[in-house]
């Protein structure tokens, strides 16, 4: 008989009762679509006519498909570069915006605006003016004596303008940091000031350790969304040039709706799913000791 670690007088069913909406919901909104998707992944299915069972053929095709392999590479490259940068940028702005000076609320609102705009036309046009050959970014580079870069046209750089777009939309991650920063008691900082610590040291000795759980949450959420990235490259580069910004998320979308290959799209989704699961599992394992345990 397993012993459940609950306060005295709390039965093991209290927790179950609390999460009961989720239990019901998970059957309908997680397990059911997942099983459907898995089964569809084992078929040749155009989304219209009856599916034809083909076993693991979709998975075998993936292994030999250059575009799939390239897309996985692009997605990994994107995730590895993007996630740490995003965390750093959001944390720094959160610190900046948690200072108690006049008009800070105004700045907080303004800093969130890019995240509200979503996939507005303005963004695609802005990026075009920033990063095309005679765009502002190149003018700035030339001003400091460097050569302009072919941002859109060179397969080494195109991914970076997508990363920059997503960094610019740091709002939601920043909010989560801001919320967590609020929880840190002010006395900690006052004590450190008395001890003669500078603000940089206070950051590393107080803020960062206390934020480690939030940092982890944000890292997990950003990794998941980076691995599924689809709308930013779709809008900014269309996956070009030479498929250097073509992510697995885009591939799934195209196979599903443009190429009428729903069976294959679902199979790829399952591979992406497994990749995500492995990456997140590693993240949980690696950080298990330093963060307070999450169930």
């Amino acid at each position: 008989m397993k012993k459940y670690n609950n306060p005295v007088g709390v039965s093991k069913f209290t927790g179950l009762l609390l999460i009961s909406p989720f239990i019901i919901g998970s059957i309908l909104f997680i397990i059911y679509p997942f099983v459907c998707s898995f089964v569809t992944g084992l078929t040749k299915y155009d989304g219209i006519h009856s599916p034809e069972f083909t076993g693991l053929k979709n998975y075998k095709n993936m292994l030999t498909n250059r575009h799939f392999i390239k897309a996985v590479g692009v997605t990994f490259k994107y995730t590895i570069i993007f996630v740490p940068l995003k965390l750093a940028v959001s944390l720094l702005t959160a610190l900046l915006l948690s200072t108690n000076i006049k008009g800070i609320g105004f700045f907080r609102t303004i800093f969130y605006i890019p995240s509200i705009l979503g996939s507005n036309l303005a963004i695609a046009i802005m990026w075009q003016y920033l990063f095309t050959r005679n765009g502002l970014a190149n003018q700035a580079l030339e001003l400091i004596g460097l050569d302009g870069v072919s941002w859109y046209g060179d397969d080494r750089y195109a991914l970076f303008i997508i990363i920059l777009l997503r960094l610019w939309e740091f709002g939601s991650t920043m909010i989560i940091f801001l919320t967590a920063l609020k929880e840190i008691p002010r006395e900690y900082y006052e004590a450190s000031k008395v001890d003669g610590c500078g603000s940089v040291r206070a950051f590393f000795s107080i803020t960062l350790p206390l934020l480690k759980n939030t940092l982890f949450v944000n890292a997990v959420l950003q990794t998941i969304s980076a691995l599924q990235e689809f709308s930013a490259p779709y809008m900014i580069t269309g996956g070009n040039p030479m498929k250097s910004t073509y992510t697995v998320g885009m591939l799934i979308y195209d196979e599903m709706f443009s190429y009428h290959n729903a069976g294959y799209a679902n199979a790829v989704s399952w591979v992406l799913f497994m990749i995500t699961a492995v990456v997140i599992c590693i993240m949980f394992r690696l950080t298990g000791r330093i963060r307070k345990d999450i169930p």
Partner: protein
Amino acid sequence: MKKILLSVVCTLILFSCGNERVQKTPPDNKLNKCTLRFSWWGGDDRHNATMKAITLWNARHPNIEIKAEYGGWDGWTEKINTQISGGSEPDIMQINYDWLVTLSNDGEDFYDLNELNKFLDLSGFNEDILSFGTVNGHLNAVPVSLTGRGFFYNSEVFEKLGISYPETWDELMTTGEIFYENGCYPIDLDIQSGGTAWYISVVYVQQKTGREFLDMNGNLGFTVEDMETVLEFYKRLEENHVTRTVRERIDADGNSALYQSPEFIQGNIAGVLEWNSAVGKYESVLDKGVLEAGNYIGDENGNNSGWFVKPSLLYAVSANTKYPDEAGAFIDFLLNDKECADILGTSRGIPASRYAEEELEKTGKLDGLTKQNADMLDAMNTVTISPYMELSRMKEFYNMAIERVSYGKGDIPEIAQELYDNITEYLESIK
């Protein structure tokens, strides 16, 4: 236990993917009281005109109510695909040409409109036009209008440089050189959704050889050597500065369409190869009257065959509809009715139905660049685009090949061979 599991899985498959085909309702040759769903995508002009037409219909047929479902183009394919997968699509749909292949490649997934001849009068269409909507002997859809890509030029730039619009391929090449000396380009060719880089090069080879790239049933008419000629021709266009290289193009314009590009608006790019039914958006970003229709390009002997036409939009009826006659009658109204034609105008292009076209001709509603270009096409020996050519996957193949040629990644024969293999393999797999 295993059996139970298996049956659960099977039920799930049926439930999740099964497009339960309801027994087709045969026409009963009378008009019953009913409500029909009609869906289309478009812009404001089309929405307003169609809503007005529906009001007119509802006034004439109080028994048959038409429920409109409409929206913009973004996401419309996704919506219709999902609806058809679930067997809950509207009774009457405006469809795109390649959907005939993706949604009904056996001809069974839309209603055969020939069966509805009691109420749907097809005498205003010639056989050729109807054949565009025929799959496997079933008339799956009726073309609303025809279109083709034509050349549209910025007349100010050509005037300034003192040259006339090119009429032969050689002239096109020399035009490129002259423009290049002045720091601009005569036309724009893309490898985005338009895929005009491939389009123009295929036309060139069709004109030269008299062979068709793809026939209506998706059989490849080109050989590997033809593909090679296509790609080589594109390379020549770039080398003669007729168009920007793929890289120069995205460096200057990003992912935007040409009509959204400052290069085009400022006249650095002086022409576009565009569907005559969509030229309006290029016209509107230049000063009034600046964009002009140019002639189709042919060889030195005046042979300008090989250029494409296709139905720009079609109407189809769902195979699951409960009221086929009523749907047929409504389509007849949209296509042939004179009063309706006046209301709809050219919101879906120049009508393919003779009755509607005559009406618009009479009331003077046909003019402008679309009409000028359509008249040129009428007088030429054109080739009908195969719906297979328009498939997204096929466009992806062409565009990738063109991109590789432009970036110099690989020899042309090798790229052509790969393209040929990709295309044959894919066509095999979907037929």
